[in-house]
């Protein structure tokens, strides 16, 4: 009898505790973000992908940042100087910048991330090649040089000095790359692969810091009391949840369970308006067709041009959804020019104009009137719904306009990536998203011999244009060379065939105010607050 009583008591207690749990849905001064993307980790010297981007915007301050209009803000650095030869960059750090345990943010913390990324034994550092601009970095990373020879120096606790191997006019733009963010020396080590999951070692120097992290489920961040701008931070807590199913994502927003959802299906734009919190993020991304230049008949520029101008991109996008936007630019459609406040693409004439009649003519000139005698080409793409629709749109249009047959080969992601790298394709879908907000990030992929040059572009004029842009000191002159390079790559040779760009659709509680935008145009909740 006593036992039963005990059991009942225990059950009652459990139930009442459950009651307490649910009453906590009154979220107070906190917001909940749900997102589909949960790839990578929180280590800037590791798999710093979507997850890192979201996390770093709130928790880790870099040296210098830019907003979506291209305006510069000092973060952990308060000033910088460049030597006359453009090689030595000195950053003076803020003395009042603090980690979430109260310790100062020092030059050693920045060097910690960079050296960990360059460590030849660190196989996860996806952005280590971004550091190759630093003298000695490439040799060390490839195992041929020594760590001491990497020209990174902490002149004192608050002075960071980088010595480059060649002048780099866009270094400040590159500082948005994860590898240039600090990670607390002594806490964040390559030996402890899970340091970033443990709030005790995963410190933040930004507005927030990590409270808990659960692999595959989500993470919670709380206000960093030591942040030097702590008085401007209004939210106490932000919870991020990973939800893989977009339908579940949407319904959790509908019920008010979460305040912000990202990565939604495009039909959301038909159901919601801006008053309901609909927002779009213009991604700095470009999806394009990569022709294999060593495969007949794709070695003929007329054939490549015919394919490029035969497509009616607006129709394809209409079929895929409103988050796909037609683009005839290789450099991301929405990228801001490095030398003006205009979009890069708006500074020049369109790279080419869609023209079905001329496409037919070009194909006939190349020896395939109405597609006669044209071999069946394969088009490889990663298996996703959107990419499949893009592929089917391209296939249907090339068939109806040019009379050529394209065989579609949907592939598993890893196999697709491998085939793309190995040059094992005829036509393949390629996609590039800006690492930092500068056109060079797109253009230098196709320098002769570059490892990212998957279809073997080898064009002296193009290489020269890129070299000229690197050498140019005047921003306007540099931009001119970048345009020239893109023109050679696309309009003159169609080494790449631009197709579409993407916007990211999200819903956010309209009561959240004080949102700012980072250089890639993504929303930042650093100083956000809830109205009412």
């Amino acid at each position, binding site marked *: 009898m006593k036992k039963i009583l005990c059991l009942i008591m225990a059950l009652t207690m459990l139930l009442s505790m459950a009651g307490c749990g649910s009453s906590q849905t009154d979220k107070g001064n906190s917001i909940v973000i749900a997102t589909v993307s949960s790839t990578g980790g929180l280590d800037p010297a590791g798999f710093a992908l979507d997850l890192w981007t979201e996390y770093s915007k709130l928790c880790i301050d870099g040296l210098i940042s830019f907003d979506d209009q291209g305006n510069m803000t000092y973060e952990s650095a308060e000033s910088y100087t460049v030597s006359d030869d453009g090689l030595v960059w000195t950053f003076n750090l803020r003395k009042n910048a603090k980690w979430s345990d109260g310790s100062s943010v020092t030059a050693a913390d920045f060097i910690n991330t960079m050296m960990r990324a360059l460590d030849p034994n660190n196989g996860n550092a996806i952005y280590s090649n971004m550091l190759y601009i630093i003298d000695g970095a490439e040799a060390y990373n490839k195992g041929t040089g020594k760590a001491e020879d990497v020209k990174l120096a902490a002149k004192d606790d608050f002075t960071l000095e980088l010595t480059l191997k060649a002048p780099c006019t866009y270094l400040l733009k590159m500082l948005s790359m994860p590898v240039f963010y600090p990670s607390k020396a002594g806490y964040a080590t390559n030996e402890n692969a899970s340091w970033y999951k443990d709030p005790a070692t995963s410190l933040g120097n930004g507005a927030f810091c990590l409270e808990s992290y659960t692999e595959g489920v989500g993470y919670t961040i709380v206000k960093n009391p030591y942040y030097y701008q702590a008085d401007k931070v209004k939210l106490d807590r932000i919870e991020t949840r990973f939800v893989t199913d977009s339908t579940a994502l949407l319904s959790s927003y509908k019920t008010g369970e979460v305040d912000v959802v990202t990565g939604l299906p495009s039909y959301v734009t038909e159901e919601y308006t801006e008053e309901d919190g609909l927002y779009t993020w213009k991604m700095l991304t470009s999806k394009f067709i990569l022709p294999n230049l060593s495969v007949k008949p794709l070695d003929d520029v007329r054939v490549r041009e015919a394919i490029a101008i035969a497509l009616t991109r607006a129709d*394809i996008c209409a079929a895929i959804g409103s988050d796909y936007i037609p683009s005839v630019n290789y450099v991301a459609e929405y990228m801001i020019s490095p030398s003006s406040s205009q979009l890069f693409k708006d500074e020049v004439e369109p790279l080419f104009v869609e023209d079905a009649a001329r496409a037919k003519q070009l194909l006939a000139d190349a020896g395939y009137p109405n597609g006669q005698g044209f071999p069946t080409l394969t088009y490889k793409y990663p298996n996703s719904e959107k990419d499949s629709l893009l592929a089917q749109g391209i*296939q*249907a249009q090339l068939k109806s306009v040019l009379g050529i047959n394209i065989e579609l080969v*949907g592939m598993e992601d890893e196999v697709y990536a491998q085939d793309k790298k190995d040059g094992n394709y005829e036509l393949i879908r390629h996609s590039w998203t800006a690492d930092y907000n500068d056109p060079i990030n797109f253009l230098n992929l196709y320098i002769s011999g570059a490892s990212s040059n998957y279809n073997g572009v080898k064009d002296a004029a193009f290489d020269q244009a890129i070299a000229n842009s690197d050498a140019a000191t005047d921003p306007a002159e540099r931009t001119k060379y970048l345009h020239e390079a893109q023109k050679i790559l696309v309009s003159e040779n169609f080494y790449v065939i631009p197709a579409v760009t993407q916007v990211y659709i999200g819903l956010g509680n309209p009561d959240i105010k004080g949102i700012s935008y980072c250089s890639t145009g993504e929303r930042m909740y650093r100083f956000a607050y809830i109205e009412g």
Partner: protein
Amino acid sequence: MLEPNEYFEPLGASEKRDDYIPIASKSFARDVWERFCTNKRALAGLILLAVIVAVAMIGPLVSPYPYDGMDVSIANQGPSSAHWLGTDQMGRDELTRVLYGARISLTIGFVSTAINLLIGVLYGGISGYIGGKLDMVMMRIVDVIFSIPAMIYIILIMLIFGSNVYSVMIGICINGWVNTARLVRGQIVALKEREFAVAAFTLGASRMKILFKHLMINTLGPIIVNATLMVPQAIFNEAFLSFIGIGISAPQASLGTLAQDAKMLLSRYPMQMVYPVTVICLVIFALNFIGEGLEEALNPKGAR
């Protein structure tokens, strides 16, 4: 005193064939067919399947629309007189796509079942009949093949041969025959000691003849029932493969890829999901009814 010839009276002409029972002798197949026809549900299933197969064969040929065209101006329309089931998000006629998809799904279902049966029956029959060490070796091979999940074979084959109808079929067949082989072997082992088999052997029938003429015939019941279940299984497998994105390649469609395409738009255009799924359901109902009917018809003693 009667004369000897008077003990018996000759029969009249009309009485001469009185011992003849006027029922036509029936072959095994006819017997089965007649019993099958008395089962209304099974017959309905057969007719339904015949209709689906006929429509799937003829439909795409007479449809005025191609299965792979594109016209975004009419995307995602509801049913109309021009497009009976509406259009999908690329403006393709939904009815044509569903019929075309049914054709591919049914082809995969029937062809892979036929291959499975052929291999499984031969393998199981030989293993069971010859027995001994050979049986032991052959069955261990079966165990090994069976212990590796089908999905692994299928994905490997996809990687090598690419995503198309043939690799789906090979993938489904590669270990699909194993069950049939086990089933047949079990039956043959039990039957080969039976009197009729021994009698046939005593009378000098060749081993081949005994195996195929006497033993196999008697395993027909379970085999055919098994086969009717294998067809929907293959269709499901293909649908599942296409659903996870490693099935046949676009713009070709199977019932599975159609469901997959519709998934993205489920909350807005649910009907696009309903059509292919309905066809899958109808095919599977039909096949199950047929299977049930055949089971009863082939084995009347076991009938409930």
